[in-house]
């Protein structure tokens, strides 16, 4: 698995994957900048929230959802492309242990995604710190003991969500075996299937993977800037269910990759 992990890094330097990082950083910087620059036009509650210890986390949280989507798309596209390019057969000639190969590669991609996420949030934080004073927002409260704890809890939850999205993206890629199809299937699942189930049967819908990861991402608390995480499922329950999903999805992805023929 270590060999598969190490061999993945030169591939991660590909332009298409670096582009995902640039998109994440760029969009986050823009989103944070726009949120703070237009704070005066927002509701009074939001204007108050931004000046509390949750202000920085509340500003970054919408971007975190964006990061999650980009992680999902990147993983599904990168792994799916190995079927259309036919590169799995070359890789499997060198490392015939299929589960080792897939695990090593996914682990490398996950580490890269966590680094990218940290970088993205770092840049978002920097932009927020630069713009906030110009909007008359004191950043001191963001970094008091409660604010600092909230910030790092947010980062921790984001990393957990990134792990979840990476596993979900891997499963979709392994099942669909095509980059465009994998990305399409992932988005269709989140927007169409989960959306429909949530509309028709919300009590069931809130336990679907996308919803559960949203609860994990927001720490179980929807903010005024991001209502996506609103759910009656508690953070602890969401963590347990997300863990179960992660195990089941990993097993299904691994079993499927191990069992199915490589015909591409």
């Amino acid at each position, binding site marked *: 698995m270590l*060999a*598969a992990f190490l061999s993945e890094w*030169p*591939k991660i330097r590909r332009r298409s994957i670096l582009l995902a990082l640039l998109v994440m950083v760029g969009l986050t910087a823009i989103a944070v900048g726009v949120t703070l620059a237009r704070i005066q036009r927002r509701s009074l509650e939001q204007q108050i929230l931004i000046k509390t210890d949750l202000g920085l986390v509340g500003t970054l949280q919408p971007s975190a959802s964006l990061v999650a989507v980009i992680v999902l798309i990147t993983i599904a596209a990168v792994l799916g492309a190995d079927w259309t390019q036919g*590169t799995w057969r070359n890789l499997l000639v060198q490392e015939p242990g299929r589960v080792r190969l897939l695990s090593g590669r996914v682990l490398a991609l996950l580490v890269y995604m966590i680094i990218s996420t940290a970088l993205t949030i770092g840049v978002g934080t920097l932009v927020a710190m630069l713009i906030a004073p110009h909007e008359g927002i004191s950043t001191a409260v963001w970094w008091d003991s409660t604010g600092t704890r909230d910030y790092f809890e947010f980062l921790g939850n984001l990393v957990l969500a990134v792990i979840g999205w990476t596993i979900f993206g891997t499963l979709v890629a392994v099942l669909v075996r095509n980059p465009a199809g994998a990305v399409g299937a992932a988005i269709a699942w989140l927007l169409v299937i989960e959306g429909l189930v949530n509309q028709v049967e919300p009590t069931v819908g809130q336990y679907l993977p996308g919803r559960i990861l949203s609860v994990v991402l927001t720490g179980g608390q929807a903010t005024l800037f991001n209502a996506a995480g609103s759910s009656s499922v508690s953070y602890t329950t969401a963590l347990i269910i997300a863990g179960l999903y992660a195990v089941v999805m990993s097993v299904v992805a691994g079993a499927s990759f191990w*069992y199915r*023929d490589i015909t591409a």
Partner: protein
Amino acid sequence: MWLHFVAQRHPWQNAAVAQDVASITPPGTESSRPAAIETHDLTKRFGERRAVDALSIRVPRGVIAGLVGPNGAGKTTTLRMLLGLIRPTDGSALVLGQSIRHPRAFMHSVGALIEGPAFYPTLSGRTNLSTLATLGRHRDADISGLLQTVGLADRARHMVGSYSLGMKQRLGIAAALLSNPELLILDEPANGLDPPGIIEMRELMRRLRDGGTTLLVSSHLLAEVDQIADWLIVLVAGKAVYSGPAASLPGRQSVAIVVATETPEQLETVARIARDHGYAVVMENGRAQIAAPPAFAGELNRLAMRAGATLVELHQVQTTLEESFLQIIGEAT
């Protein structure tokens, strides 16, 4: 066991095959080491279709084995099964003495280029090789040397996306050689190569064989296979209709003696002599083609002289692999 199997299915393969096996196999290796490849009733079904049907073949070590057959005969499916990329529906196979159900046991000694080269187009040729070497734990792989061997040293730092098909093919062969393999499996290695590239490839394969590597080469270029293969496997509709030494392929021993004389009358005399000895004769373009073994040429010359016929041309023509192949396919279908 395997010879018995082939003999049962194809009575035209005789004991000479066993002698030929011994003659093309390096002394001492045949008995002491398992075959490079051995399959027993290997079968792969895709739905109702049997892509490979109870295939039983054997490739001894240290030979270049040609895997030939018409489109859809099951060549690539067979190679994929041998490499563990697809699972057999039934039957078994050993590669370097290890079951194909456990590819990790033998793949470190196998190199392969399957169904065309597949690389990351936005990485350079060198980086593609380097990632594969890391993945395969080939720490001693001489990537620069391999790139030099396949003639890509000058373009090694260029993105693979800018390579021609022939260059990608060369890179694929370099990748297959990363592990310094005991067994090299090449699927259509001459695809996209220019004539000098094909000649270089042929020489490379011979060098590897001479160095002890076993090569299994699938190709539809029969003339190419004819030039390099010591061993032949002919697949038709997923079945092996021949598996054995290339020289023993049915029809390969058929030799025609071509004769020309000073006058048409003398040619008739020669034809009559040949017919009297039980050989078929075809008169064509002022020459007589006599379906006779090479040993008959000398006797024919002597008998013709005694009969007053002066031979102005006497040579042998051996059946090409293409002709033998078509004959076998015709018999099989």
